């Protein structure tokens, strides 16, 4: 497809799954309620797939270990399953299957086997879903060798990263953001190579490194800062692990100031790794200390004002950038 269409993230991922299943008969989809009998997923991301592809799309019992185990096994048998874990917090249940097995089988078998699965999951603050339905847990997986971690911020990347993730020969965790599910944007239907960040906005005074919904917040901050004469560059990581050091370091070297932002809890979050590498590599070249913004060191709260205060906002990002520029 070469034309560009306006789609939201739900539609873009749905289209990517349709296209991948049509292109490769080995692609499978499984998870709770993914079939059309159950309305094609709680948010409709898998709508139409079971009708189009029959037995290759299977709704499962509420059995997260068996869902990931079945995906791993089917992948060892030559298939490319896309398994859905309805919400990211539920991924705590099949952690053994993901971290001890999916991520390690290639290495532990000396390269004899590999696990080309995609684990789709969804999360994010903003809908008052509280402590067990909102967390960003990407650091758990970025800390695990052998699994890739991807988190798109817009419909175009959602399509392109999903297609690339399915074709990848290693397990990929694909993190979707609930509050931005229905934000439309242009989709060009091009695959997006994993491991490549994107400069979402060019600027000269400071760099914000972000992923998923925090890219949206960073772009909003950039608008505010532009009115103050501060030119912000926004790097959208897109792939969290393995992350694109070259693009991040080039941007930070260019602007001399970096702020790393994520919605996940700041303490021991992926921002710590990125900030540390920027510090190690660009020591002496930076004009200000690298800053990190992230979620509070607390479970995500229910009450509206508390939830709103949990994750960084555009205003928080703008404030951090001002601090860096005036340092």
């Amino acid at each position, binding site marked *: 497809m070469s034309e560009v269409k306006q789609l939201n993230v739900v539609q873009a991922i749905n289209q990517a799954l349709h296209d991948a299943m049509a292109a490769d008969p080995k692609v499978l989809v499984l998870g709770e309620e993914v079939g059309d009998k159950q309305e094609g997923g709680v948010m409709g991301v898998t709508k139409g797939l079971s009708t189009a592809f029959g037995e290759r799309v299977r709704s499962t019992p509420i059995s997260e270990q*068996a869902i990931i185990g079945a995906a791993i096994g089917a992948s060892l048998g030559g298939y490319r399953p896309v398994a859905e874990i309805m919400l990211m917090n539920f991924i705590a249940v099949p952690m053994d299957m993901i971290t001890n097995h999916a991520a390690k089988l290639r290495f532990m078998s000396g390269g004899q086997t590999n696990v080309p699965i995609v684990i789709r999951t969804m999360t994010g603050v903003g809908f008052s879903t509280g402590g067990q339905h909102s967390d960003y847990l990407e650091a758990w997986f970025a800390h695990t060798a052998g699994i890739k971690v991807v988190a798109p911020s817009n419909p175009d990347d959602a399509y392109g990263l999903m297609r690339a993730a399915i074709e990848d020969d290693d397990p990929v965790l694909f993190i979707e953001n609930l509050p931005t599910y229905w934000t439309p944007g242009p989709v060009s239907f091009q695959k997006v190579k994993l491991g490549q960040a994107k400069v979402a906005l060019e600027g000269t005074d400071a760099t914000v490194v972000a992923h998923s919904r925090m890219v949206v917040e960073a772009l909003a901050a950039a608008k505010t800062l532009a009115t103050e004469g501060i030119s912000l560059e926004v790097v959208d990581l897109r792939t969290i692990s393995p992350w694109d050091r070259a693009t991040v370091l080039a941007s930070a070297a260019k602007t001399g100031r970096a702020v790393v932002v994520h919605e996940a809890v700041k303490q021991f979050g992926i921002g710590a790794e990125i900030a540390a590498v920027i510090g190690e590599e660009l020591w002496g070249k930076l004009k200000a200390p690298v800053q990190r913004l992230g979620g509070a060191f607390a479970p995500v709260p229910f009450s509206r004002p508390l939830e709103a205060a949990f994750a960084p906002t555009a205003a928080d990002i703008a404030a951090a950038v001002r601090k860096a520029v005036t340092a």
Partner: protein
Amino acid sequence: MTSNHPKPDAATLLEIYKRATLIKQNDERIIKMMKAGKLVMPYYSPRGQEIIPSAISVSLDDDDYICTIYRGIHDMLAKGFPLGEMWAELAGKVSGTCKGKGGPMHLTCPSKGMMVTTGIVGSSMPIATGLGWAAKLDGKGRVSVANFGDGAANIGAFHESLNLAALWKLPVIFVCQNNQYAEHTRFADSTLVDKLSTRAAGYGMPGVTVDGNDPDAMFGAAKIAIDRARAGEGPTLIEAVTFRFNGHLLGEAGHYMDKELYAACQAKDPMPKLRARLIAEGIASEADLAATEAGIDAEIEKAVDAAMAAPFPDIVELKRDVFAEEIA
């Protein structure tokens, strides 16, 4: 057991003995090497459980899948796992089946259908279920065998796997090798059911408890389950009752062990029993068996020598096989 229960013929029985003998003699060699300090590894001996995989695998082909556990060297050898690559892997050498990166708990050999060896209790089951799904989608009559212990029947993955395999009518044979202990815990101290096979009913699949050390019973139960799976009729749970003679982890003191049970089980060691039977039934002569055993020892010796002489992997292997692309 019904009268139409399939029985191994003389040739099959002899084949079961050969596979079981390979397992037994290989185990003895491993222990000797470890005691001499020439092999350093965590070792979970399958001694005593030889008959189970030997009687199952005679009804399997190379492309049937199996998943097993840290104690599963018997399952692998019965399925035809190459000895040389196994020994090199046990020694951590680059010529090992996993280039020395997996070790005894993660031996893998896809060409023999040996897809996953896990060190996590219960985790062979969900993956074997997925292999069963792949086999069903392929439609070539392949089956998938999940091996696990009695202790693993109490972990959540057991429930999820059996339920899903039954629901999707997958060609999976769940083989619970009940050696009556999980680490230092007696079977009866972790569940109130006498027979784990009774749990199968809760998932809508057949379940059977057999004497895993009896080649006839084990062969028959496995054959029925495998035929059923190949015919597209779905999974079966087999509880194969057995005993492990070398405790949980080689080198343990074994104070937890019930001495009477141990003595009783040892008196019923299935290996000399099958050997005597082969001679009594005229299936093989003492001389035939002695020659077979010597041949196996020679094969093992060759594998050991090659493994000891082989080089260790290069340090660059740390960067390889993490992902398809080498880590920069």
